[in-house]
């Protein structure tokens, strides 16, 4: 917003006051009229005084060094006090730090596997170059320690430049989150229920999923938001048939995270969300692209789509999501992998229903119990490799999660839940978590 010098306003007000005064004497008003005009004049004079005082203060402030006690965050800085007609906004910092993190405790039925973990610690940085252009970056450390001997990872989760083309359209270039599902672009622990992210949006949609590319994002006045672009995609040539990783999350096993990503085959993606009624979100996403990059005799293509809905009437928070992925030409791709435990599935899918209710609030405290029903299958079907060679589809896992999020303050959440697995009951567990986001 433009910052205007208040002097013209001051002059205009003074002129108006003078006119009003002249007007008052030019007529022969009744006593009541005269009193009213005098009141108006007094009010105008008070305004002029206030503005003058403010100008003097501004001049004094401009000459004085910044107070070390001045609050750094604009949220806590003083409200606009500049003279009319435009209130000067608080100084907007060009660079903003942010962060989120979560510490989790999982105690499965096989209690010897109980673990406590700094699941992720993320620092974000946003820098605004001008009113239309900014950089958004996030660096993440998973599992607290990353070294040659430790399982942790250090990752750049986001690194993109966004330029606002006009009030409707923005273009993003760089490493960004893929618009798919409800969680991927809103993955901070304060934004979802349960200690762990839901299975469908980790095993089927490989959150936190990001690709490098170019994206157009438009938001329309009828409530539609459209995102579409071209980006890097998956790498089927790194499928490890000897590991069970591909069975845990087929796309999680072959995502590239823009780390020396193979980029001969690019993917296209699109997402459409409608939020035209307050509290309601209806949407879907699609991602498709080649994933063999000319490095395999057989060409394979990965397609993933989802449909989702979220509705937050009053204290309720209801969500539903379905996602399905498929990989083409897996018979040929699997030909050299036969005999290994984990072949490339032809299709995989999952769905969940979730209901949360804000049961109790006191000041910033809020307790929201929730229940989530999920079903997912990471190997719903395999391409036919011949009798005795084609793997059986995996059993569809069903998980019931019951728990609560306790909001300590809007940026801090304490979570607890229990999870019951229909197929692999050894996975039944108790989860505790602490998360924050700012």
């Amino acid at each position, binding site marked *: 917003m433009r910052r205007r010098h208040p002097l013209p306003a001051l002059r205009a007000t003074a002129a108006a006051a003078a006119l009003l005064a002249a007007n008052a004497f030019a007529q022969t008003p009744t006593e009541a009229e005269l009193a009213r005009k005098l009141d108006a004049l007094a009010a105008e004079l008070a305004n002029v005084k206030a503005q003058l005082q403010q100008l003097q203060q501004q001049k004094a402030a401009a000459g004085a060094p910044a107070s070390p006690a001045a609050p750094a965050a604009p*949220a806590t800085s003083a409200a606009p006090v500049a003279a009319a007609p435009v209130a000067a906004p608080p100084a907007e910092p060009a660079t903003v730090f942010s962060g989120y993190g979560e510490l989790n405790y999982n105690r499965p039925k096989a209690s010897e596997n109980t673990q406590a973990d700094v699941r992720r610690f993320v620092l974000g940085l946003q820098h605004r170059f001008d009113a239309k252009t900014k950089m958004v970056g996030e660096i993440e450390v998973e599992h607290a320690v990353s070294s040659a001997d430790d399982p942790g990872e250090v990752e750049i989760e986001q690194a993109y430049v966004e330029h606002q083309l006009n009030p409707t359209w923005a273009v993003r270039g760089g490493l960004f989150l893929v618009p798919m599902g409800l969680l991927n672009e809103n993955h901070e622990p304060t934004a979802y229920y349960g200690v762990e992210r839901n299975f469908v949006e980790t095993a089927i949609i490989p959150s936190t999923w990001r690709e490098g590319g170019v994206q157009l994002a438009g938001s329309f006045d009828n409530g539609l938001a459209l995102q579409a672009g071209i980006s890097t995609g998956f790498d089927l040539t790194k499928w490890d048939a000897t590991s069970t990783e591909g069975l845990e999350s087929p796309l999680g096993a072959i995502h590239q995270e823009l780390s020396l990503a193979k980029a001969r085959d690019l993917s296209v993606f699109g997402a459409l969300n409608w939020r035209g009624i307050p509290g309601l979100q209806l949407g879907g996403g699609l991602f498709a692209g080649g994933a063999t990059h000319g490095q395999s005799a057989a060409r394979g293509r990965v397609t993933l789509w989802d449909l989702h809905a979220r509705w937050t009437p009053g204290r309720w928070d209801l969500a539903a999501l379905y996602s399905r992925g498929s990989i083409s030409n897996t018979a040929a791709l699997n030909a050299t992998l036969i005999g290994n435990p984990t072949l490339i599935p032809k299709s995989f899918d999952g769905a969940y229903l979730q209901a949360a209710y804000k049961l109790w609030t006191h000041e910033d405290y809020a307790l929201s119990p929730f229940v989530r029903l999920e079903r997912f299958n990471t190997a719903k079907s395999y391409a036919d490799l011949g009798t005795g060679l084609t793997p059986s589809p995996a059993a569809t896992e069903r998980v019931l999660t019951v728990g609560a999020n306790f909001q300590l303050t809007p940026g801090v959440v304490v979570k607890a839940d229990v999870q019951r697995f229909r197929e692999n009951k050894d996975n039944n567990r108790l989860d505790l978590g602490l998360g924050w986001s700012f």
Partner: protein
Amino acid sequence: MRLWPAAAVAAIAPASAFAVDYLSAEQAARLMFPDADTFAPRELALDADQLRALEAQGVRGRSARWTVRVAQHAGATLGFVVVDEVIGKFELITYAVGIGLDGAVRQVEILSYRESHGHEIRLPGWRRQFVGKTAQSPLRIGDDIANISGATLSCTHVTEGIRRIVAVVALTRRNGALA
């Protein structure tokens, strides 16, 4: 399902002429009080007692100093306009609240929104939820104001800001500072 026809209508409805970024404060004020011929600025300074009174209502005073534009027509007060800024998730959201003489919110306008997500707070449907709310209303997300999925922080902070402005205007009108 009743929502679908509504969705279809919303999808084909023309874009609002004003629901864009960077609506100026003057434009917003004129939009809220088209009959006004003057928007006289009033500088308000809340004292410690008044800030405590706000706290007692569950409103964080944040600042003791406020500028209120008094919408007037031929010297008669029509209502009040306050322009304020809150942080959304990372960036400032500039918005304006118009309040009628009955103390109820008349209109809310988003003057600028800079976040990558959550532009939907500019939608008329979301802003309309505030119309008619007074200092007695809860004015809370998840209560009388519906959230926008994916823009929770922006919704929460703007709603908090509007609750604060409604309370400040009500308080200062009661004690005569804002006639």
